[in-house]
């Protein structure tokens, strides 16, 4: 029974993946104009022919899709064409090698930072529900969670970067080059993306904490004489974090989108910036492969959360049979 359920979830995710990548293929095909003229206006006839066959313009879309999918699965994401070039270009995989770590660092720091702050805040607000401090902080959290990350990012650039001159406002420093500078260059982008997440996460955790605190096992624990801190961290946090986890997984999608804008504001040259450049300059293969990568990552996160649910909350395990 359990295995069957897992298989069904997996099959469904695969079907969605197939359809998403196919939808993107169709969308890229619909881009107006002749790709060859757009990508390589100065190419020779040979170069044109080569590009034509690489972009699958001479075969039908279904054939092309499966050829692309075969390459994609093997890790060949296609070429990034240079307009001055004549056939060929830079492999997109190679560009990802530079861009992807930057975005992954950004997301990793953002998630870690948001969760480390959101967990204690959410639990605390749930514990102190309906006191004055809870009401004040909850309202503030609500307002913060509504402010878009770019608005926050631009304000932070102005205050911390330009007026107080504390932090660099542009560019990215690789970790291997100088860890100190690396963290400095990440502070503002991470902060801009995190504030909304912290607010959103702690609001969710607060609601679930309030519900968990009413359960019998909490009364039991406190009548055993366990300290409040122990009860909150060891007994309440785990069963209260289910909604938080779903939200965190769903937010990954929003985070990728928000990161596109943040990467551009802070000139991080990461994945989001690569995607934006690809779309604006109509890098046909790049658009297709990059959006497909995002969809894969997004669906993967959701699957992981489905599994983690059962690990975090044993009640889910038994309820699902």
């Amino acid at each position: 029974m359990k295995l069957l359920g897992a298989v069904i979830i997996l099959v469904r995710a695969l079907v969605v993946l197939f359809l998403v990548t196919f939808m993107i293929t169709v969308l890229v095909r619909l881009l107006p104009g002749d790709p060859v003229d757009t990508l390589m206006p100065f190419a020779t006839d040979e170069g044109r022919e080569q590009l034509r066959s690489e972009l699958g313009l001479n075969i039908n879309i279904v054939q092309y899709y499966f050829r692309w999918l075969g390459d994609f699965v093997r890790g060949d994401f296609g070429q990034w064409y240079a307009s001055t070039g004549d056939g060929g270009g830079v492999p997109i995989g190679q560009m990802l090698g530079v861009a992807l770590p930057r975005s992954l660092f950004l997301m990793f720091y953002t998630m870690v930072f948001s969760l480390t702050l959101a967990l204690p805040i959410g639990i605390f607000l749930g514990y102190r529900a309906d006191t004055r401090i809870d009401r004040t902080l909850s309202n503030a959290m609500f307002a913060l969670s509504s402010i878009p990350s770019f608005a926050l990012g631009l304000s932070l650039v102005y205050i911390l970067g330009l007026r107080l001159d504390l932090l660099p406002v542009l560019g990215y420093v690789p970790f291997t080059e100088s860890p100190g500078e690396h963290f400095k260059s990440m502070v503002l982008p991470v902060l801009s993306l995190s504030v909304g997440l912290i607010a959103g996460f702690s609001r969710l955790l607060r609601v679930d904490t309030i519900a968990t605190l009413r359960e019998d096992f909490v009364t039991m624990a406190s009548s055993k004489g366990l300290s409040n801190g122990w009860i909150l961290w060891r007994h309440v946090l785990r069963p209260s974090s289910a909604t938080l986890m779903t939200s965190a997984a769903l937010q990954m999608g929003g985070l990728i989108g928000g990161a596109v804008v943040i990467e551009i504001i802070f000139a991080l040259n990461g994945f989001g910036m690569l995607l934006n450049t690809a779309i604006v300059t109509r890098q046909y293969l790049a658009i297709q492969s990059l959006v497909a990568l995002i969809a894969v990552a997004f669906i993967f996160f959701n699957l992981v959360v489905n599994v983690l649910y059962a690990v975090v909350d044993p009640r889910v395990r038994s309820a699902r049979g």
Partner: protein
Amino acid sequence: MSTNKTYTVPTYAAFGWLTFSTFLAVFGPLLPVESFRTIHGDFLDAKPFTAGHWFGVDSNGYDIFSGIINGARLSLFVAFITVGIGGFIGSLLGITAAYYRGRYDSIVNTAFNVVLAVPNLVLALALVAVLATNVDINEAVPTWRRLATLMISLTVVIIPILGRIARASALTWSGREFVVAARSMGMRDRHIIWRHIVPNVLPVLIAVGFLAVGVVIIAEASLSLLGVGIPDGASWGGMIARGRNDLEYNPHALYFPIIALALTVISTNHLGDVLRGRLDRREARL
């Protein structure tokens, strides 16, 4: 919210702000304010509270106050229209899918999941790129066409978000006794959906619709920052995108539109939240 009172001060404030900005959006052109396109050459870089230019003037000579009023028009117009149309199509699909179930339902549901698998900003960006460009990449696209494509793209983004909510809500209502009773009495499907399911699903949709308005306003502004929004810096997002280049010397060109945008999103989110809270309490009583 945590208090027992239905309407609190923030609720009135949120409602007030939305009414006020909608008023500006609708009657903006009739107000005794100069057009946002007028260039005030004598007031370049004027700081806020300059006589005649309350919010200051940016480095191009555009009055910020006029810009905000005109921006309200565009930002709110885009948001309400897209959420309206997207919500209508989404709920039509979602409700019928939940009612008829079967293969139709699984097709609709899979379609929603497929669209939702691409983050909404990335999807909107890709759609705008496909729809709003000419055959020649360097040829300019007329403003109305960019506005139309922007709205179509955002509508496509909204459809599955609201559609999924509508479907989930309609699923619970389709199983209720009164629906079963109506069906067993031979009431036609269209009547049951229209009379028994839609009125119950609608409040949830309106609550989530408010949240969706916030999503659209932010998405539109983000697209402006990415350079594919409404041209000429006309919307709030466009003003932010333009002000960004001059952040160091004219921060006011940036923070007024940011404040307007943030207040609007906070208000719509808050109202959506309050409405949902009221619904939950009603549900609990039933």
